[in-house]
């Protein structure tokens, strides 16, 4: 009996958990109901701001969660299945071609900004030049079909805003790609790991951090099953690692929405010079999804001119609190400062001069 359990416990737990979920979904028993009834009682005295805070925090978290999960799965599968040499064979070597190409990746890979950081980080680790990766990171949330459709809808079926948003987004992404080419070509941008593995591909041999893992690696090159397992178990760690920053970002953004408020910014934003900076700051601290922010921006139309609106629409998807926090987990601090500072300056200057 014990032996059967030992041999088949993965399958058994799997069947058990799936059965449990199936049971709860089909019978419609809210599992947590007894608990929430009690807490609902005592928390009814709390101020409504706190409830609103939870609502907004959870909504940001739940909305972003699928994208984080897709992002980490994708990143882990790239980590395990893609060899360093094979991936870039198809990419043009010359930056004049590869940077604009990276800026248009989003058209085929519609992930929003929540899922993009783990993917970009993994690609850099796999040897993709950092200038390509950063162009990709900046452009994908803007130059992507979902964002385009929602912007078109939000701004009264007008293509003008859409073209300007895409143009500016792609332009800034390409410019930043060039900057990274000039300043970071051939220099490491990722943090050096103390824990081993992330600096070197698992099977590189030099840095296997413990024996068990090492033998696991040797094995998995022959056996598809354990390779899949490795990718999945890597996803667990990647998910927790990225998820914590994402969660923190959502927490701060929700706090901003409930305790400071957009309305406060709206009032200040009526002063022309301030408006652009304020709208960019707002985009940074709200951290809402690039496929939804157009609708929020559209609600500012009566008080703001085009420049600040574009600032909000272009800057938000590229640099926001969640993303910067997630990047902080993997990239070097100096790189993040360079990235955030430079992108902010370029966006500000472009919008100041042209709009």
């Amino acid at each position: 009996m014990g032996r059967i359990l030992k041999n088949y416990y993965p399958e058994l737990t799997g069947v058990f958990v799936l059965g449990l979920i199936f049971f709860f979904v089909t019978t419609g028993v809210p599992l947590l109901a007894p608990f929430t009834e009690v807490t609902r009682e005592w928390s009814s005295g709390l101020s409504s701001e706190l409830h609103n805070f939870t609502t907004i925090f959870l909504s940001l978290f739940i909305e972003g969660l699928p994208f984080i999960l897709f992002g980490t799965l994708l990143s882990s599968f790239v980590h395990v299945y893609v060899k360093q040499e094979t991936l870039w064979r198809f990419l043009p070597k010359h930056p004049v071609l590869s940077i604009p190409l990276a800026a248009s990746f989003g058209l085929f890979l519609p992930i929003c900004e929540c899922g993009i950081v783990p993917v970009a980080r993994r690609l850099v680790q796999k040897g993709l030049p950092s200038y390509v990766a950063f162009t990709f990171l900046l452009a994908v949330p803007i130059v992507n079909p979902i964002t385009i459709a929602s912007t078109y809808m939000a701004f009264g079926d007008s293509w003008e805003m859409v073209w300007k948003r895409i143009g500016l987004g792609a332009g800034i992404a390409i410019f930043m790609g060039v900057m990274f080419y000039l300043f970071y070509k051939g220099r490491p941008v990722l943090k050096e790991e103390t824990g081993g593995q992330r600096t070197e591909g698992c099977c590189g041999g030099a840095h296997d951090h413990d024996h068990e893992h090492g033998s696991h690696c040797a094995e998995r090159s022959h056996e598809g099953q354990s390779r899949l397992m490795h990718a999945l178990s890597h996803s667990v760690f990647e998910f927790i690692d990225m998820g914590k920053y994402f969660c923190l970002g959502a927490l701060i953004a929700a706090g901003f929405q409930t305790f400071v408020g957009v309305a406060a910014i709206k009032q200040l934003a009526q002063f022309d010079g301030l408006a652009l900076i304020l709208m960019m700051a707002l985009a940074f601290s709200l951290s809402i999804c690039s496929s939804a922010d157009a609708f929020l921006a559209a609600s500012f139309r009566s008080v703001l001119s085009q420049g600040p609106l574009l600032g909000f629409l272009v800057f938000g998807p590229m640099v926001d609190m969640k993303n910067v926090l997630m990047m902080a987990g993997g990239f070097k601090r100096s790189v993040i400062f360079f990235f955030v500072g430079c992108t902010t300056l370029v966006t500000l200057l472009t919008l100041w001069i042209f709009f």
Partner: protein
Amino acid sequence: MLKAWLRVGICLGMSVLLVQLIITGELSLFVNPRFTWLIVASVLILVLLGLVQLWNMKGSELHRIGAWGYLVLLLPMAMYLLIPPKALDASIASKKGVSYLSAKSVNEQQQKKSAPSSASDTNADPLAVPEDPYKKFIPQLQREPVIHLSQETYADYYNTLNFYPQQFKGKKIKLKGFVYRDDTMKKNQLVVGRFSVTCCTADAIVIGFLTEGAKTATLKDNDWVEVTGSLDVGMYDGVDMPVIKLEAVEKVKPLKDPYIYFTY
């Protein structure tokens, strides 16, 4: 080992939380229901990850993750249980700001005003003069004796009325919503509106109608009401917008599904 169990707990706990939200229907308080499939997908992925972690309990740590990371990730569940979320109400509307008029109407009317100067270049680009999707509602709305904004029609009718306020002057209108006031309104004015949600509640904005009349004095902020009145045209920042002249008002229970979901 504790950390491994925490990882199992986070993955499976989150999926339990999501399943709970789906079953109780509370999910619609957080995200637009058209994303439900995404949430179901996340439940499946989370369960898979939880199981994988269970099968690899003795495996080594692939990333070094500090204790604070685990604590932060337990927060969503803790907050759901300890400070139960509820539908957004007027208390946050003041933080979010209210738009009396949709972007579309501003857009349209600004284009009309600047038409003489920019007519040539808007005509040059056929995409800049798109077929207006709300025009088709005009005859339909004009036929109805009372324009009734229900859950399904709210967004479309709201936009149509904001788009063409002049066309509906004097028409009767009936809608449910919550009461909201701010400093810019006169004493006998308030807004009756709903939150509209595009993706998640974080991007919710209030879409409502400015309502005026003597009866507004009896209403408190955040009351849910059903108002009946006739439409008039007012000015706001130099743009026409619909105003409801209040005739009858009745307090109602807060709606179970308080938001309007945008689909596009």
